[in-house]
C-alpha cells in the first residue's frame, strides 16, 4: 500500500513539476498577444531568430538576457562602446547592416522577429513596416515611444518604456524577468521622487543634440524622452511649451531661455565636441549652463527609450539637486 502511495505521490510530484516547471511555463504562456502601436501582435511561440535595430532597442534586449535569440543587429556600428553588456556579448553580435536596413537585407537574415520603431528602422517609403514583415511571416514589435510618429499614443512617461520591457518579456517567454526588471525600475523611481520631494525650484534644463556647429541645434519639446528625463530628475525642460518630441530650435531662443543645465548628446559625435562648441560660441557666453560649465553627457541609449533610462534620471538628478543626495 505504502509503495503504491509512494508511486502515486512521485507521479503527482513529477506531474506537478512538469505543469509548473520550466517546460509549460513557456508552452502554456503561448500564444501571447501584445499591443503593437494601434495593432495587436500575436505570437504562437517565442522568436528564435530575432533581429534588433538601433542601440537603445538592443540595450533593452540585452538587459533582458535575450542575446542568444538575436541572430543579427543593425545600425550599431561606431556605437559599440556605448552598449552596457559584457564585451564578449557585444562582439558576439553580428551586424548585418551598419545603417537602418532595407527590406531585402532584413529578409536576407531569414529572421522570425524584428524589434525596431517608426523612424527607428520602420519606414513606409523603404517598405520596412510591421505589415510588410508580416506578409513574409516575420513578427515584429514597435518601440512604443515611436508610435507617436504614426498616430496617437499616451503622453510620454516611464510607463511607455516599461510597456516595451513587458511586451518583450511576453513575446520571448521571459515574463518573470521582465516583470522583475520593471518592478525594480518602479521602486527606484519611487525612491528618487521621495528624495526629490520638496527640493523647491526646478533648475532650467535644455537637451542639446547637433550642438557642435552654429547650425540650429536639435532639442526636445514636451513629448520627447530627454524632456521626460529632465522632468523626472527634478528639472524643468526649457522647451516644454513645444508639444512635440525632437525639434530644431534657434540659438537665440537658447540664449533667451537661459538653461542652467545642458544635457549633451554623446553619440556618433562625442559630447566633448558639442561642449567645445558651446564654450566657444560668443553668443552663448552668458547662458548660465555655459558660464558655469554645467553639462551632462547622455548616450543614445540613455536618452532614447531603453532599460538605461532610470539610471540616467538618477544621474541627472544628482547633478541638478546634489544637496538631496548627501549621505
Amino acid at each position: 500500500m505504502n509503495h503504491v502511495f509512494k508511486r502515486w505521490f512521485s507521479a503527482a510530484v513529477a506531474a506537478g513539476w512538469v505543469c509548473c516547471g520550466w517546460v509549460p511555463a513557456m508552452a502554456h504562456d503561448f500564444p501571447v498577444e501584445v499591443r503593437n502601436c494601434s495593432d495587436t501582435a500575436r505570437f504562437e511561440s517565442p522568436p528564435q531568430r530575432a533581429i534588433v535595430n538601433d542601440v537603445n532597442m538592443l540595450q533593452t534586449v540585452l538587459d533582458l538576457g535575450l542575446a542568444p535569440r538575436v541572430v543579427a543587429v543593425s545600425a550599431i556600428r561606431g556605437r559599440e562602446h556605448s552598449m552596457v553588456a559584457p564585451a564578449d556579448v557585444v562582439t558576439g553580435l553580428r551586424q548585418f547592416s551598419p545603417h537602418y536596413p532595407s527590406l531585402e537585407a532584413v529578409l536576407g537574415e531569414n529572421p522570425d522577429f524584428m524589434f525596431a520603431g517608426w523612424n527607428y528602422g520602420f519606414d513606409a517609403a523603404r517598405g520596412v513596416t510591421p505589415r510588410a514583415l508580416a506578409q513574409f511571416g516575420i513578427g515584429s514589435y514597435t518601440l512604443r515611444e515611436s508610435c507617436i510618429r504614426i498616430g496617437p499614443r499616451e503622453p510620454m512617461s516611464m510607463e511607455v518604456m516599461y510597456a516595451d520591457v513587458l511586451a518583450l518579456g511576453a513575446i520571448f517567454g521571459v515574463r518573470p524577468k521582465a516583470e522583475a526588471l520593471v518592478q525594480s525600475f518602479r521602486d527606484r523611481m519611487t525612491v528618487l521622487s521621495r528624495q526629490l520631494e520638496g527640493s523647491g525650484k526646478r533648475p532650467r534644463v535644455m537637451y542639446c543634440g547637433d550642438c557642435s556647429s552654429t547650425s540650429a541645434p536639435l532639442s526636445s519639446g514636451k513629448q520627447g524622452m530627454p524632456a521626460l528625463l529632465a522632468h523626472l530628475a527634478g528639472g524643468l525642460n526649457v522647451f516644454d511649451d513645444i508639444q512635440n518630441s525632437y525639434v530644431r530650435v534657434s540659438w537665440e531662443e537658447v540664449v533667451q531661455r537661459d538653461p542652467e543645465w545642458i544635457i549633451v548628446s554623446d553619440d556618433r559625435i562625442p559630447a566633448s565636441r558639442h561642449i567645445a562648441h558651446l564654450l566657444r560660441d560668443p553668443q552663448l557666453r552668458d547662458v548660465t549652463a555655459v558660464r558655469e560649465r554645467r553639462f551632462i553627457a547622455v548616450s543614445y541609449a540613455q536618452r532614447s527609450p531603453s532599460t538605461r533610462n532610470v539610471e540616467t534620471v538618477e544621474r541627472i538628478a544628482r547633478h541638478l539637486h546634489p544637496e538631496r543626495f548627501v549621505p
Partner: protein
Amino acid sequence: MKAPSLSILIPLLLCSLAGVLVLSVALGTVTISPHSVVGIVTSELFNSASPPSWTRGERHIVWELRAPRALLAAAAGASLATIGAVLQVLTRNPLADPYLFGISSGAALGAVTVILYAGAKTTSVALPAAAFIGALLAMAVVFFASRSPSGTSSERLILTGVAVAFLLQAVTNFLIFNTLDRGADAAIFWMLGGFSNARWHVLPLPVVVVLTGVGWLLLRARVINALALGDDAARSVGVDPFALRLELFVVTSLMTGATVASCGAIGFVGLILPHVARMLTGGDLRRLLPVAALGGAVFLVGVDVVARRVMLPREVPLGVVTALIGGVFFLLLMRGRRSL
C-alpha cells in the same frame, strides 16, 4: 554617322533588356548563390516541387522583392523615356520631361500625405493609390486652369503646369516641415524615387497603364510627328493641334501618374533618354519611340542594379545614380557629335 536600322537596334535592345533583367534578379544588397537564384525562379515559374536548397528568406528576396522590382524598373524606364520623347515634340522644347506638368508634384503630395498621416495603416497599395490620385488631381487642375477660349497653346500648358508644380511642392514641403518627427525622412526618400516598394500586387497598375500608353503613343506617332513642325503645318495636314495636345497631355499624365505612384519621381531618364534615342534614330517618332522605350527600360533596370551594389549593404538613392551615369554618358555622347 549613319543612323543604324531598327532591325538591328530593336533586337539588340531586347537582348540587353533580357540581360539586365537577369542581373537585376541575381544581384542585390544580399548575396545569394546563382544556383539558388536559378532554382528559386524555375521553381516559381514551373511550380516544381523539388525540395528547396535555399532559405525562406532567400526565396522571398528573389521572388517577392527582386523579380517584381526588375519588372517595375523596366516598365518605369520605358514609360518615362517614351513620355519624354513625346513631350519634347509636343512642346517643341528639348528640356521637356515627364514632370513638366506638375503631375509628379501631385503624386508626391498624395504619397507624402499618406506617409505622414496614415502611419501604420499605410499598406503597400495605399501609397501608390494615394500618389496616383494626387497625380490625377494635379492633372485635372492643370487641364482646367490652362483652358482658354482661344484653345490651349503649349506655352499656356507648360506655364500652368509649372505654376501648379510649385504650388503642390509648397504644400508638400509645408507638410514635411510641419511633421518633422513623423516620417519626413521617409517622405524625402520617396520623393527621390526608387523601386524598394515593388511587389507583385503593386505591379498591375503601372504595367497595364504603361503598356497601354506606350502602345497608344506608338499608334499615334505619325500624327504627333505633324506637331513637330508647328501648329500651322499640323493643320495643313489635317491635324487639330489643340485637340491632339490635350489628348497627349491626358495620356502622358496618366502614364506619369502611374509610374510616379509606384516608384516616386525618378529624374533624368525622361529628359536624357529621348535625346540619346534621337541621336540613334533621328526625330521621326515612329522610329524614335520604340528605341526610347526599350532604351529607357534597359537603362533604369541597369542603373537599379548599380544603385544596389555600389555601396553595399546600402542602397544608393536611384536618382543619384541615374543623374551621375546618365549625365556622364550624355556628355560623352555630345562630345562625339558636332551637330546639336
